[in-house]
């Protein structure tokens, strides 16, 4: 019992590690927010484009989505960081991670939005078409508002799953939360910073989970 306390809940070590770890936490939050903005935005755009009746638009989107849904996030981040420079494209560790995660989130978000779009009754499209609305206007003003509501539960799940992947940034030397925890751990020869890291992850992701529950609850009743 004392050993567990010494190795995993060592308060003096945790106290010393806290300032550095908070620094890492800031970067984690920044990465998460950037990923959500880029991933959800790109996913929405792809879902809108996919609704156009052209296979030259539709097929590349479906290919993109299926590739990035099947590749592990870590593999994508490592490819961007280590392989792309050979093609003359270089990203910082931060942007390699954010870009990799955004691509994955975009693929999943596209599927969520697309499910909402296809769940829209045909009559909605027909009513809009019959009043002379263009395809774009129909999608933006008639189909999407209810479709986004429909897609919220699966979307929030994906957002949480993918943004937790910011911890993978430690593999390409982003000085985020987990990277700091690991480096301090090896210096002090005590894994308590990891416990602190876990608590800090909880501190940012638990409110996100609660927020997503609230969103789901709210939209269930307002329909």
């Amino acid at each position, binding site marked *: 019992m004392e050993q567990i306390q010494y190795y995993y809940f060592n308060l003096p070590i945790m106290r010393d590690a806290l300032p550095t770890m908070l620094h890492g936490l800031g970067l984690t939050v920044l990465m998460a927010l950037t990923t959500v903005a880029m991933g959800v935005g790109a996913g929405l755009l792809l879902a809108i484009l996919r609704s156009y009746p052209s296979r030259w638009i539709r097929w590349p989107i479906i290919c993109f989505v299926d590739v990035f849904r099947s590749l592990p996030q870590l593999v994508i981040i490592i490819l961007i960081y280590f392989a792309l420079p050979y093609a003359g494209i270089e990203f910082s560790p931060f942007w390699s991670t954010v870009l990799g995660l955004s691509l994955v989130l975009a693929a999943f978000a596209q599927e969520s939005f697309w499910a909402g779009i296809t769940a829209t009754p045909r009559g909605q499209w027909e*009513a809009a*078409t019959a*009043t002379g609305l263009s395809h774009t206007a129909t999608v933006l003003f*008639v189909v999407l508002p209810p479709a986004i509501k429909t897609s919220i539960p699966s979307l929030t799940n994906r957002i949480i799953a993918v943004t937790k992947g910011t911890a993978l940034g430690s593999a390409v030397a982003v000085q985020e939360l987990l990277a700091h925890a690991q480096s301090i751990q090896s210096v002090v020869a005590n894994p308590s910073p990891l416990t602190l890291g876990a608590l800090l992850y909880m501190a940012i992701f638990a409110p996100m989970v609660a927020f997503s529950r609230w969103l789901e609850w709210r939209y269930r009743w307002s329909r």
Partner: protein
Amino acid sequence: MTSAPVLQISDLRKSFGSEEVLKGVNLTVQRGEVVVLLGSSGSGKSTFLRCINRLEEPTSGSITLNGNSVTASNANLRTLRKQIGMVFQSFNLYPHLTALKNITLALRLSLGQTRQAAEEQAKHMLAQVGLAEKAHAHPSELSGGQQQRVAIARALALEPQVMLFDEPTSALDPELVGSVLEVIRLLRQRHMTMVIVTHELGFAREAADRIIMMDKGEIVEEGPPEQLFTAPKHPRTREFLKHFTGR
């Protein structure tokens, strides 16, 4: 009544796969005329109506609206569709928008009206269908009859040349049917050109200038309501009327 027809449809055919559901339908509708399409389900009357604004793509045949081809490959469909109002069996109101916004959406996006002009027009239309006080209600807060009247107002607001009604009262509880038929009667008094698919035979007899009887994708009989109801010539018409009046 002028001689130039509003709608002229000739030899309209439509196949779903190998099944031909419209087998060469011809119909001319004069300005101000009310045409009612009758027929059992599967006779092709709804498909025919939906071909007129090309919600359903006809396989062959031609349709003109005031002399402009709807079926030409270079037809400006958006412009033509604004002139063809359509009312659906299941209303198809936009659930996330108020009654007012359901109407202003096309006014603003299809006709390019300003917000203020569109809202004035929409309020005017809602008043005409007796729902002025429901402008800010969402569809889920309205009865079926009220929803259908909003849907009619939405189509009318674009000031179409012709209104198409696809079984407008079939999804309504019996006690709500009257309010919707009342609005259609009002339109008739104002000489709106209308093509109506309905199973309300009493209404058809009273409101139609001409009745078209369809069966298996073809027009089997047409004429003024009195003639068709009192002395139907085609055996299918007789059978259909007997079946419905015997209900």
